[in-house]
């Protein structure tokens, strides 16, 4: 369990997160959803443990702040892209922690090749990361996180630059981490996708958590809709899987899709 108690995060005078208390189960996929500016990115960064916060965040009973023993992968919303570094070098950075300073094991090289193949970057190892397209860069970033073999992976909008097919491909790859007991925490604007992959959802609004729980409970709750000012609609598929969309007009269309033509 990751236990968050009375978490408050400030930027200057402003409180971006206010008194958040929520638990996130280990070994599961938890998705943070909420409108722009709700504080999702801020919460994700707090979970990383690099910067000071007030309140407590305990991961397996240990305070996360400056706990250098954890192996946490972090996929930021907008990464700082280093110039002059190749895709292979970039992904290999994920191995630093495991290989130790200045070393590069054979295992790492094999693993990185494998991951590059999984993320469909294999032909691009020697291309510079600054020359990648938006989606390719995002995959390189995720590849680096996978190379880390983390115990916890934090993903901030991991699919925002991916095409439809790669969204699925990449999320499937991430989902497989659960087999190894990895905890996954991500933000995701596409709540349909979130509901497809996550077991738990945390709904945020205005720097607070308004609801958290299993997907099935949260998805149909008024709190979710409320977080988006009731501008979204929720449908359910035959299989029970939900689809969440916003309507184009205020007189929101509620149509039912037909079979493919």
């Amino acid at each position: 369990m990751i236990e968050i108690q009375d978490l408050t995060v400030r930027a200057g005078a402003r409180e971006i997160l206010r008194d958040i208390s929520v638990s996130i189960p280990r070994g599961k996929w938890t998705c943070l959803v909420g409108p722009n500016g709700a504080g999702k990115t801020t919460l994700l960064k707090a979970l990383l443990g690099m910067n000071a916060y007030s309140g407590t965040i305990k991961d397996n009973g240990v305070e996360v702040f400056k706990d250098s023993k954890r192996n946490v992968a972090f996929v930021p919303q907008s990464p700082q892209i280093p110039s002059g570094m190749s895709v292979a070098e970039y992904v290999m950075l994920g191995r630093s922690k495991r290989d130790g300073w200045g070393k590069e094991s054979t295992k790492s090289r094999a693993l990185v090749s494998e991951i590059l193949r999984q993320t469909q970057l294999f032909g691009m190892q020697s291309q510079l990361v600054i020359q990648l397209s938006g989606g390719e860069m995002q995959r390189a970033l995720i590849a680096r996180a996978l190379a880390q073999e983390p115990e916890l992976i934090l993903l901030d909008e991991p699919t925002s630059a991916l095409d439809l097919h790669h969204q699925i491909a990449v999320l499937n790859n991430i989902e497989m981490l659960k087999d190894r007991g990895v905890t996954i925490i991500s933000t995701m604007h596409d709540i349909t996708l979130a509901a497809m992959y996550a077991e738990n959802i945390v709904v945020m609004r205005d720097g607070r958590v308004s609801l958290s729980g299993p997907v099935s409970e949260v998805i149909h709750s008024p709190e979710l809709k409320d977080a988006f000012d009731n501008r979204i609609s929720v449908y359910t598929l035959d299989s029970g899987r939900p689809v969440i969309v916003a309507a184009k007009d205020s007189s929101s269309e509620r149509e039912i899709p037909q079979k493919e033509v």
Partner: protein
Amino acid sequence: MAVALLLGVGLLGVSFGPIHLHFDQIVKTLVGAPGGLKGQDRTLLLDLRLPRVILAALVGGALATSGAVYQTVFRNPLADPYLLGVAAGAGLGATLAFTTTGGNVYGLLPIFSFVGGILAVLTSFFISGKFFAEPNTLLLSGIAVGSFATAIQTYLQQRHSDALRPVYSWILGELTAANWRVVGWSSIYILSSIAILISISKQLDGLMLSDEEAYSLGINPHRLRIIAVVAATLATATAVSASGLIGFVGIVVPHLVRGLTRRVTNRSLATIAFAGAAFLVLADLGARTLLSPAELPIGVITAFVGAPFFLFVLRNRRMVR
């Protein structure tokens, strides 16, 4: 290969000069085989040229490595090893040695300039407050501290204008003072600093990312920056106190190696160290021979030979930014 290159350049360095020594005799003398040099030539080789060439290699390696590290840490291609006030502090220290101490100025000079350089950087650190939370703040703080030290130095020089020429010639950077004692103490600081920097070079690549990303990769960016800057500063302060301010090496050699190898990562740090060492050994050879019997300031040669070469690389190989 880099090692062989450096050794070759070093051999050139000890061989040429106003008095020419032959390669075979040099080698025989060095390995202790019979048929080596004798008398004044032997002294020339062992007590004058050898320490000088070694000092040139140490200083060149120190400046190039520190420059490369500063450029990464501050994410700034303009960064050079003198950035945080080492140069200005050392200059002030040297001026103080000339103006306030009577007697044995040259014995005190290295100590004064070393302490001055380190103190200036510490002041920059202290004033910038949260150390490395904001590299740019540290950098501006370094500039201000450096300017302040230079102001005091200039003022002192005004008040003691007889110190103008010696300070000026010290600033120009000289390897004339090389002897085994200087090589001894400077090699300890410089070699251990370079060893530290090369050992963390892979981690340094992580500083090209955002702090959060670096942290998640197992790097403590604040601590790593401090280690890197402290080691680089120690190497630079030592180089400066052993040989004055030798410009150009620290900023250009790293860019040159990056331009030639088309690599920006810090894997090339060892190459940069060797390139800096070889470059300065050659430059010193030029300083001793080009205008012989006069000796040219080494800074003149570094820029005179290095600049056109660098410009050529800059123009012809699209620099990896």
